[in-house]
């Protein structure tokens, strides 16, 4: 819905100013440095969310494990 407008071209079309940026891939809409920075920020954000498995989930799975063991026949 809000995505109507096409991504803006990050580079100038003026050939005289384009000579210094030939390293950039043609199919990439963003420069490599920009992509790398976003990737790095995304990963450090995500890493900041990683915590050891909370006890409630350990308990949950162990409890279910026991209750199903009780019901089933001995292996």
């Amino acid at each position, binding site marked *: 819905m809000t995505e109507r407008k096409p*991504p803006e071209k990050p580079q100038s079309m003026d050939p005289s100013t384009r000579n210094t940026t030939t390293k950039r891939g043609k199919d990439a809409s963003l420069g490599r440095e920009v992509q790398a920075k976003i990737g790095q920020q995304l990963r450090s954000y995500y890493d900041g*969310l990683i915590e050891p498995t909370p006890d*409630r989930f350990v308990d949950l799975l162990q409890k279910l494990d026991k209750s199903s063991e009780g019901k089933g026949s001995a292996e």
Partner: protein
Amino acid sequence: MSLDPTLRDIMLAAVPSLRAFGISLCGNVDRADDLVQETLLRALANIDSFQPGTNMSAWLFTILRNLFRSEYRKRRREVEDADGSYAETLKTQPEQTSRVEFEEFRVALSKLPDDQREALVLVGASGFSYEEAAEICGCAVGTIKSRVNRARTRLSGLLSIDNADDFGPDLTTRTVLAGNERP
């Protein structure tokens, strides 16, 4: 039906990343924990349909993603946590220096459409391939690629990340100007 201890351990090992994915999607730690809990319960109820040897993480991510999407259809995203107290609910807090960057990124990410955010996080952070992300989201690989690209473009605008070349001269110029104006 009893849960194979090996499967249980694989499921538990997947939880930290699954939880981070949940937080990224809904923007709220408590809701993400509820999503993870519901995901584990669904997974256990359907454990027979899991094929040993296949990717348990991808399976769990698929369940959580679908739960989030169906829940989202019912109620709008309610808690936006505008006061920035969000990171405080995490036990492991980001270091002070990276705190600002963390907050900025969190806010920017929350502004992306759901489909772009999930694609970007799956590929860029959770460690899935484009193919796996496509399976998790139930769409074509090309669709994932274009969503990831759009997400990056959008984020670069929101975070004012420009080409690195632009920073150097600009900063220098600003410093020089600031120096000249000092009495």
